[in-house]
């Protein structure tokens, strides 16, 4: 049968011909870089606790430092190189989120400060925020319903 006859056979043909992403290598790099970022976070957390901050304040300080560092590295054109190497390892921690807001802000500066930087800053992170916040509201409503019921039942 002609490999280009139907949509499915064509897709199979393309899949057979095109090189795959190096999944094992990517997973390994993502694992150790992600682990390293989390270890750095833990070290900062421990230092903060040592200096007498409570756990939640220390957590906030860790977030602020990691976000600041990631935004700074994005500005230096280094974070995209780390991201290319580590993939999800640098994308999943809070560093990736900071990068996804700073990078459009940098690129869209050419379209002006209000409509460019301001308007386009959340083009990448926007969907994550919308669905993340919506999901948290839904979960909150469900929690409220079940929680009240359990209170009235008992």
């Amino acid at each position, binding site marked *: 049968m002609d490999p280009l006859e139907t949509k499915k056979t064509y897709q199979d043909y393309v899949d057979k011909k095109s090189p795959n992403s190096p999944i094992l290598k990517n997973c390994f790099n993502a694992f150790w870089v992600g682990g390293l970022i989390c270890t750095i976070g833990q070290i900062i957390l421990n230092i903060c606790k040592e200096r007498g901050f409570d756990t939640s304040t220390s957590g906030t300080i860790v977030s602020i430092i990691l976000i600041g560092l990631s935004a700074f590295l994005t500005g230096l054109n280094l974070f*995209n190189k780390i991201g290319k190497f580590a993939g999800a390892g640098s994308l999943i921690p809070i560093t*990736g989120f900071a990068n*996804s807001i*700073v990078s459009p802000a940098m690129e869209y500066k050419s379209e002006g400060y209000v409509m460019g930087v301001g308007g386009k800053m959340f083009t*990448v992170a926007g969907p994550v925020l919308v669905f993340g916040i919506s999901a948290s509201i839904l979960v909150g409503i469900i929690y409220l319903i079940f929680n009240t019921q359990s209170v009235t039942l008992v």
Partner: protein
Amino acid sequence: MQKLGEQTIKFDNPPTILDCASIVGPKEAQGPLAKYFDQTLDDEFWGEKTWEKAESKIIKETVSTVISKSGISIDNIDCVFAGDLLNQCISSSFGLRELSIPFFGVFGACSTFVESLSLGAICTESFAKHVLCATSSHFCSAEKQFRFPLELGNQRPPTSQWTVTGSRCSCFS
């Protein structure tokens, strides 16, 4: 000019390409076609502040090159069909406005150049003596427009496409 069949037109005086020129970016300059380009750039900015301005400059210089190569004066060029990948075709409209040639902005993504050639050819059949057709694209501005900002730390699959940085222009009558 007459229509044959469903989607074909036949020209009474077939249009001829007199001259063409192209300017490309650094990645294209590394490829096997490098020796066929009129000019290759060493960096993506070409002395400009933004990629959009660089793209504008590329198309402007390409059109100037083709005009000087063909030896036709600007007054004898009746119109120019040009397009690019950006909103409102900004790189071609800003790049070509100083030439003061009637400008038609064309948007057809990958097919922009062939579209301009066909439309220009139809013009030569009625009123135009010389027509310019140009197109331009820039990897960095196209990535921003259609995919993600370059600074975003994501991984590209090995088969992902790479938009050309460069411009092509043909002059025909």
